[in-house]
């Protein structure tokens, strides 16, 4: 199909955004005597063709400068932004990680984040992750309240989500409305900031618990829960723990030896020279992000997570979590994020 575009006589010489100006030109064109035509508004149009150096005149300058500023801002945001800052890391995990892990290299390029999944980087359940913490909201559960029954009852999910998780979110918001200085930080930044942890422990606890719970809901699924992961994650588990059974034993042990309230995590340690999967427990509201580890999967072992269904039998709860509830696709997606970050750097 041949092009049916009609090119005006100016198009070859001028950029498209100038065409509007040329329409306005009325009356005789004055020659400033410098080899350029000047319109009545004082703009000069290059007679030598479209080249940056040929632009003179006020409006051209402003436009060009605006374009250059825009280009600079884009550069700052996407390329030069400090690693780990919110700018430029919207699509990535906040841990600066150029992962040298060979397993990332061995596998074909993981799918880029599209924002359509259910992971923390998606926009679907985006009311907690990677947004200014002043806008933190209580996200909906990814499933109905009775979806995980009989393993986790509807009563537990309702209380856990609408009472415990909601209270953390509300308390965090209360503090943030009173004290504006944290408003532009993300939850991830607050968790990683050692000074906030000591100077404002109540804020840290509530923001971290909001994050932890929003992450925990996605670590469970009513359909296809349990089983084993696949892809890079499974290969890494075999490499770093020996076998899936060994890994599961280790993670269950961490969950059971968490003395008091806390969480057990599977995470990816991207610290230089230590790149590998790790299993760790944290106490209270603590989160692996504070230790340079990217969370992939978690299980809540605060008593309120299992007391109504399992009473004191935490081991039964942890077993049931791995047998029936664990959402490996979410963990794989989280690992993909780490890999994708590496690719883009």
């Amino acid at each position: 199909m041949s092009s049916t575009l009609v090119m005006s006589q100016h198009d070859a010489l001028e950029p498209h955004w100038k065409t509007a100006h040329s329409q306005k030109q009325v009356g005789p064109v004055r020659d400033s005597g410098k080899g350029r035509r000047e319109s009545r508004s004082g703009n000069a149009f290059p007679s030598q063709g479209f080249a940056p150096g040929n632009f003179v005149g006020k409006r051209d300058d402003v436009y060009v400068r605006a374009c250059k500023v825009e280009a600079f801002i884009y550069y700052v945001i996407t390329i030069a932004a400090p690693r780990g800052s919110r700018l430029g890391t919207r699509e990535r995990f906040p841990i600066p990680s150029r992962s040298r892990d060979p397993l990332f290299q061995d596998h074909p390029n993981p799918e880029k984040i599209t924002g359509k999944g259910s992971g923390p980087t998606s926009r679907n359940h985006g009311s907690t992750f990677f947004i200014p913490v002043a806008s933190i909201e209580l996200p909906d559960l990814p499933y109905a309240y009775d979806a995980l029954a009989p393993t986790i009852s509807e009563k537990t999910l309702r209380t856990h989500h609408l009472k415990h998780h909601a209270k953390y979110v509300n308390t965090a918001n209360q503090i943030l409305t009173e004290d504006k200085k944290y408003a532009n930080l993300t939850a991830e930044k607050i968790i990683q900031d050692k000074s906030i942890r000591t100077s404002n422990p109540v804020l840290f606890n509530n923001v971290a618990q909001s994050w932890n719970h929003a992450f925990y809901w996605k670590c469970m699924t009513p359909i296809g829960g349990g089983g084993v992961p696949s892809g890079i994650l499974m290969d890494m588990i075999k490499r770093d723990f020996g076998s899936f059974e060994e890994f599961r034993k280790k993670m269950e042990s961490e969950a059971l030896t968490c003395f008091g309230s806390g969480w057990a995590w599977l995470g990816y340690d991207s610290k230089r020279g230590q790149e590998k999967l790790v299993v760790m427990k944290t106490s209270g509201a603590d989160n692996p992000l504070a230790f340079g580890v990217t969370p992939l999967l978690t299980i809540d072992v605060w008593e309120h997570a299992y007391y109504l269904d399992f009473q004191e039998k935490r081991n039964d709860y942890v077993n049931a979590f791995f047998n029936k509830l664990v959402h490996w696709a979410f963990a794989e997606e989280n690992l993909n994020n780490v890999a994708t970050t590496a690719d883009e750097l």
Partner: protein
Amino acid sequence: MSSAKQIILSPALRAAVHVHSSKLNPEAAKLAAAYLSSAPSGGKHVLPDLPYDYAALQPAISAETMELHHSKHHNTYVTNLNVALEKLDEAVSTSNVSSIISLQGALKFNGGGHVNHTLFWENLCPKDSAASEFPSSGALKDAVEERFGSFENMKKEVSALSIGVQGSGWGWLGYNAGTGRIEAATCPNQDPLQAATGLIPLLGIDVWEHAYYVDYRNVRPNYVNAIWDVINWDTVEERLVKAKSG
């Protein structure tokens, strides 16, 4: 009972109790739990029996909570403490310093759990019993008024601290031997008060979720407010007098 019978009977009873624990008569469960608490090694520590029935502290604390709390949670601390102590004996006798150090977490947790809960059961009593009324005169009243101004103030302070514990822990009223005054304090997880702060424990309030979740769900303040009805002030005063003299 001869040791042979014990070797056979203990695990059998333990298995039976475990399997049927939800159907057992609470009295029977209570006695069985106390009996079975010692580890197979002969056990150094034993689950103490309660001075009242499981249902005695209602409505502040339900019978179901008391049974779970005493026969399951406290029992587990005692059992695991005995196991950890055995391992410690072995590590000390072989001079395995690494092993000694690695056992500290389990000892602190289970040992603290046993100590704390033993104190806890003793400073509770049925509502409307003679001991549940705060004394109108005596060492305890003087100490409370000197430090907090009034009984109500002391309740408010200890309640606020207990409710404010992040995660699991205990609220305490303790005696500071150095200054001769009583103080309100909290400890995280199962850290025992005296070992962690030097204060001598007078009154403990368990604010782990297992202490109140069945009855109050997430509303810890309701539990803490209700527990003041069942505090055994006689025990608290005894402890204070002993601490002052010792």
